[in-house]
């Protein structure tokens, strides 16, 4: 089954939302590849287009107002954007599954959690109701909830438990790709680590590829093999976690690192990135990061950079590297 080169191969994806206030350019011409069983982090600020990317992969962009303007999404061999609804329903849940940001609202309040897990199993596997129920119980135990709670309703569970149930729903049909959209943002810090551990253990067990959407670089370092940094609907830097963390290239990525507290230099000040993300209805003409970039030159405001390879695996989208001696501050001090 895993004969395909990539678990996920997205190319030239553009997503827009047509609203009365103008066209929101949420995702602009991005490429994203995830090899089988690998984990890729998608990092960026709120509003960078991360969730839109995820929903596009499921072909679940709410329409109207959302439109997938162009692009190709191949999901383990399935061409997601050119499939009939009935075929898509077969792919969703079995080939690709998704964990959502807010566990509080992601479960249906009037159905018990057993029903919600079983539903997915019954849709994708040829089993009887009893077998599905048994599988659901096992799944529940797998995510660390006692099987006696299978008839509980969502309102009877804590936030962390709800997220566990959602993980159970996502993994019960053994998908090739798991999309985790900020899976721990809405949880308490102490629960976050547990849930991340759970995801990472289950992923190893099921050999699932993962797209992990987050704004937390620490989580990426822990959980991912590769990372794509997204800004205003574009990927500005992509590489292995090692490359992006130790040999940071893009000024925006640098800004993200600078705004993190440093554990071994507690006296250093946090350096937030000055300014705000551009209005996605009116993206600037040149590099979208130029207005906030401390290295910005005239050309940055006029010309739009493209992703250029630095090594086999490392790409960056920045005009400054047209000057071969350019280096960002972070790399000058030798880490």
């Amino acid at each position, binding site marked *: 089954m895993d004969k395909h080169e990539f678990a996920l191969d997205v190319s030239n994806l553009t997503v827009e939302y047509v609203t009365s206030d103008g066209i929101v350019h949420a995702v602009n011409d991005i490429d994203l590849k995830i090899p089988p069983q690998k984990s890729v982090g998608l990092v960026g600020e709120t509003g960078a287009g991360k969730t839109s990317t995820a929903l596009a992969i499921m072909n679940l962009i709410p329409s109207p107002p959302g439109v997938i303007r162009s692009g190709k999404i191949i999901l383990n061999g399935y061409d997601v954007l050119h499939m009939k609804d*009935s075929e898509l329903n077969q792919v969703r*849940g079995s080939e690709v599954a998704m964990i*959502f940001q807010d566990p509080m609202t992601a*479960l249906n*309040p009037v159905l018990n959690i057993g029903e919600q897990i079983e539903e*997915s199993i019954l*849709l994708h596997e040829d089993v009887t109701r009893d077998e599905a129920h048994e599988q659901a119980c096992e799944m529940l135990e797998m995510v660390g909830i006692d099987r006696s709670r299978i008839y509980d309703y969502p309102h009877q569970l804590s936030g962390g438990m709800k997220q566990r149930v959602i993980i159970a*729903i996502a993994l019960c049909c053994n998908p090739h790709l798991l999309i985790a959209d900020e899976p721990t943002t809405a949880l308490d810090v102490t629960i976050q680590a547990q849930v991340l551990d759970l995801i990472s253990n289950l992923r190893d067990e099921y050999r699932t590829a993962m797209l992990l959407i987050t704004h937390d670089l620490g989580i990426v370092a822990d959980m991912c093999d590769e990372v794509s940094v997204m800004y205003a609907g574009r990927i500005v830097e992509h590489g292995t976690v090692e490359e992006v963390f130790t040999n940071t290239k893009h000024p925006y990525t640098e800004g993200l690192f600078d705004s993190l507290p440093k554990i071994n230099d507690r006296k250093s000040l946090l350096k937030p990135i000055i300014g705000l993300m551009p209005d996605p209805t009116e993206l600037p003409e040149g590099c979208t990061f130029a207005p906030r970039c401390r290295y910005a030159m005239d050309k940055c405001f006029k010309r739009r950079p493209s992703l250029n390879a630095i090594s086999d695996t490392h790409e960056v989208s920045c005009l400054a590297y047209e000057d071969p001696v350019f280096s960002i501050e972070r790399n000058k001090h030798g880490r």
Partner: protein
Amino acid sequence: MYRYFLKRLFWLIPVMLGVSIFIFIIMDFFPGDAADTVLGEAASQEQLEEYREAHGLNDPVMVRYVRYMANLLKGDMGISYVTGRDVFKTYMQRLPNTLLLAFSGMTLAILFSIPIGIITALKRGTVLDGTLMIISLLGLSMPLFWLGLLLIIGFSLNLGWFPTGGSGDLKHLVLPAVTLAVAKMAMLARTTRSSMLEVLNEDYIRTARAKGVSKRKATLKHALRNALIPIITVIGIELGSSLGGSVLCETVFSWPGVGRLIMDSISKRDIPMVTGSLILTTMLVAFLLLVVDIIYAFVDPRIKAQYQRKK
């Protein structure tokens, strides 16, 4: 949970006491009294006074009220001044007609309006949605008694399909039931639509779709059940209003139900009949709303949980 509903049921007692006091007081302001009604205009002043004294009509309101309630507890709601028949029995004879009309009208309304509400929510912003919503707004703005007259003109007088009024076989039921249904339909379709629109945007619908649940099933299984609470509320209120407000529809179609009984009794100043009928109708409506509350708990486990905690 049962204890909660028992509590609610007991709570009806003080409410009904208040209702009966209010009704009793307002009846006291009705022009004319039993003596006038029973003895007629020919009676002399002395005869009237004698009758009032003999039947305790000169006692203060509260004394008469206590006497009435004491009898009520014994199951005696008094005797009609006009027909001389037992109030409770007369009411119960008329009640099935009113219930039949209210429930058939409501069933008709539910059958049409909920699908309309769901379709318009799914097709929001399309021509179909716009057209159906304009029609429902017209239905909502149309006085029920006028719609009744129009239906009589169209289907009874011009086409001759149905009788203009009265009761008997199914044919008599059609026009009044449709009249009642149209008014309720407009309200219900609009509620269903807005409630569905709200629910369809919820995260759990997206979760369901991400599992591979089809759009159709996500709408009917996941969304509709969540949208049902406001819909049931409106059904309850509308059913209550078609029982309590049955007088209009029954007047237009000369339907021999409770509403007409009350109207006739009021015009004849048949005070025991009016008092008894009003108390019984109010009780019926209050009980109906209690049943609606019970249904909530079956639809939404969160509400059930609340009740259990309140125990």
